[in-house]
């Protein structure tokens, strides 16, 4: 009797111990991965930015704030910042296209779901691969876009091959590629707008446009804020589009393209790290503002 009892007790304590250990086993791999792939690198980033780390030379020296001083006087860096700022035109444009397509797809028509699938399809494709298409479309002498312009009797333009239109060309490409993300988010928001409010407004004599501006738009506020912030961060991070569609005279070289060139083509990793740390601080500020803004929205 006694023996049976004690073995039962033992079994029970073993179980209790398992419950205590099990969660660490479940979260262990993920926590280790995130530590190794994100937390440790971000902690390393600041010290590395104070060195002249390079893949070419084995000896790295502590150089203090030299990299940050260099950054202030680096014309190419500021030029790439300016180009990134130019890309901000993308943000309102893509939001407008997303909202427009969402409003169109929100109407109850037969087979409308099919079009939702089609409109979202560019989002899931590889930016690098689709850029090949646009390279061809933008080709000045036989590309699609100039063919269309010529068809309407207009003169063709240089698109990516011209420094003054290159940024605009990349923005058009990026809108085509990305508008589906915002479209789905706006669509989810539109479906949450209660029909009764609109009906009440109709009875009071509101036009469709008035209903849209005074009822729908304010109710989409969370979607507006979310998309505004993610698109702003997306523009700071623009890389693949400009890696593929390169304008002449570095006219589309964004901050990240420049960091990439410095860090890996000219192997100035310490300097590239300093630049990416500055960018990190900017993006973090934007993200924190987002959190504040959405919190405010929830209250």
């Amino acid at each position: 009797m006694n023996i049976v009892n004690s073995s039962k007790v033992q079994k029970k304590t073993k179980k209790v111990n398992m419950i205590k250990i099990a969660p660490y086993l479940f979260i262990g791999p993920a926590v280790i991965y995130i530590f190794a792939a994100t937390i440790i690198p971000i902690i390393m980033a600041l010290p590395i930015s104070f060195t002249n780390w390079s893949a070419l030379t084995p000896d790295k020296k502590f150089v203090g704030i030299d990299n940050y001083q260099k950054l202030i006087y680096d014309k190419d860096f500021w030029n790439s910042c300016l180009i990134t700022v130019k890309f901000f035109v993308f943000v309102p444009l893509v939001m407008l296209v997303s909202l427009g397509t969402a409003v169109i797809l929100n109407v109850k028509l037969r087979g409308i779901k099919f079009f939702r699938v089609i409109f979202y399809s560019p989002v899931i494709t590889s930016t690098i691969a689709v850029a090949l298409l646009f390279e061809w479309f933008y080709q000045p002498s036989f590309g699609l876009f100039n063919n269309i312009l010529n068809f309407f009797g207009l003169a063709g333009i240089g698109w990516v091959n011209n420094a003054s239109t290159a940024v605009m060309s990349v923005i058009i490409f990026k809108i085509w590629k990305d508008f589906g993300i915002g479209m789905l988010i706006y669509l989810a928001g539109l479906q949450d707008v209660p029909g009764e409010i609109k009906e009440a407004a109709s009875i009071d004599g509101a036009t469709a446009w008035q209903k849209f501006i005074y009822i729908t738009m304010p109710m989409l506020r969370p979607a507006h804020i979310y998309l505004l912030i993610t698109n702003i961060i997306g523009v700071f991070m623009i890389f693949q589009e400009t890696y593929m569609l390169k304008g002449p005279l570095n006219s589309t070289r964004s901050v990240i393209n420049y960091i990439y060139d410095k860090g890996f083509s000219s192997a100035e990793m310490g300097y590239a790290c300093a630049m990416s740390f500055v960018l990190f601080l900017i993006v973090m500020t934007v993200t924190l503002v987002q959190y504040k803004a959405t919190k405010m929205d929830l209250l």
Partner: protein
Amino acid sequence: MKNNNARKIYFKIILYLLILIITVIVAFPFLWMILSSFKELSEFYNVPPTFLPEKFNLDNYRELFSRGQFGVYYLNSILVTSIQVVTSILIDLAAGYGFAKYQFKYRNGLFLMVLSSTMIPWVATIIPLYILVSNLKMVDTYWGLILVGMADATFIFLARNFMTSIPTPLLEAARIDGAGELTIFRKIVIPSVKPLIAVIGIQKMISSWNAFQWPLLVVNSDKYRTLPIAIAKLSSQYEDAYDLKMAAAVVAIVPVLVIYILFQKYFTEGISLSGIK
């Protein structure tokens, strides 16, 4: 009343027209890409451009896969993607379950760490990560290619939110019946979160398949290249080879499009699961 009906019909016609125009803008490039991949290079110079290939031939694909080693790149992409999908599902689900259904020390702190890691932009970590990986002698190996991207904090967050809805009494009952913790996870938790697995699996598949920034850094030699890297190289080396470029784009895009259309409900579900509205 009649007037109103007429207005409704006009409205519908305009709507359909708009939908048609957007459909053409979105879908036409894909369609033309596929058709053009069967064209000869000379046909690309036609003004006005031809829609259907004048002479239908498979030479571009032959060129890619025989001389261009796209077979190797394809296998690399399939290898990296399939391993990362499996590891990501396993690691993210387990972590989501641990965070959702257990009480333990440092739980909130560790979860906050996972959550805040999603806010760190990749560019801030990529140089130190490269230095770490090169210290481990994993640059230009499959290890370097696969290890980074094994799990995703956003999916852990998603899994944790989804799994809080699993009823705890169900798990307790299994425990009283003598089931071990791993058995509970395998036999009760996993079968009840199939939609979550589908969402994570498919989204991870697309993001692994399209991954560019990290593979671009970590891979130097030809034999480890994945499709996006190979395509970027092709584009800079053969600027005017539009015929090859279209075939390469088809090879990278069409499988993803097919999977997307077959499983499209998991994409919209992913957005509603993550609670972004």
